[in-house]
């Protein structure tokens, strides 16, 4: 029985490693984007409890594009309930149109079993979180809803 269990564990480890490796090797890196946002809206959006002392969320989004495509790819998102050791990993696609601008370029970040997240591409360096109606979230005196490109090698 033990050898079987060991084999099973090894198989799961290999699979996990393989899927993470796929994110980083079969796609081209678009960039790494960091930012800090307020908490409340994301707790509501992701159906999570709002921690009592949560005043901000630190985000890091890494975008990769599929080979030969500029409109689809994979991503890794760290922040809030998506911890370093268990990031949100999924696929993205470009959609067109926000509430304020029907020509806006919007990244739709999909993941199995959870709400998609929407990010407006303001330019090559700045992304802006949108709500589920694709309206810009409104920040506060301390934090906004932007993610800014950082110079980091992955």
């Amino acid at each position: 029985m033990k050898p079987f269990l060991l084999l099973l564990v090894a198989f799961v480890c290999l699979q996990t490693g393989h899927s993470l490796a796929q994110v980083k090797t079969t796609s081209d890196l678009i960039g790494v984007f960091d930012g800090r946002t307020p908490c409340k809206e994301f707790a509501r959006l992701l159906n999570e409890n709002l921690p009592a002392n949560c005043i901000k969320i630190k985000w890091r989004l890494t975008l990769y594009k599929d080979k030969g495509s500029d409109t689809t790819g994979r991503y890794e998102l760290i922040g809030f309930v998506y911890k370093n050791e268990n990031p949100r990993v999924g696929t993205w696609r470009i959609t067109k149109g926000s509430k304020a601008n029907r020509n806006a370029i919007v990244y739709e970040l999909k993941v199995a079993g959870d709400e998609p997240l929407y990010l407006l591409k303001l330019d090559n360096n700045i992304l802006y979180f949108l709500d589920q109606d694709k309206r810009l979230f409104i920040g506060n005196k301390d934090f906004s809803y932007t993610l800014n490109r950082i110079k980091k090698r992955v």
Partner: protein
Amino acid sequence: MPVARVTLLGLLVSCFIMMNACSQTSANHSSTGFYVGSTPCDSLIRSILKIPADQTCDFIKWELHLSHPDNFHLQAVYGASKPNTNGFINGTNITVTGNYTTRPDTTINSSATLYQLHSEKFLSPLLLIELDSSIMHFSDANKNLLVGNGGWGYVLNRSNE
């Protein structure tokens, strides 16, 4: 008599066109209101606000009132970030009043508006692009959006406070 009528009609049409043009300029001032936010303190913003090079400026907290017809009042605080808080160790206040102009700008989208804030206290006009009726983003003179960092973006948010 017909000549007088044509002249009168011409005058009326001219007046209508001019009034329409004026009302469109006024309509662009859609974002009068109160905006707040915290931004980085990179060289461009430092120079516009004339923050001395020897002073620590980790970030800036902004409170901007835009009021009719074209006046603004800015209260900003900058300084060294106080660890584990959203405040400063020892903040320095800046108060600026002046006027602003608006014009359509297609850098971000076809219906965006560029706000130019003018004051003698600024080294050069402070530029903001309206992303929607609640969000402004700082830009440089070439209308490139200023890129923030992991801590802060260059955004002002409409506030009701």
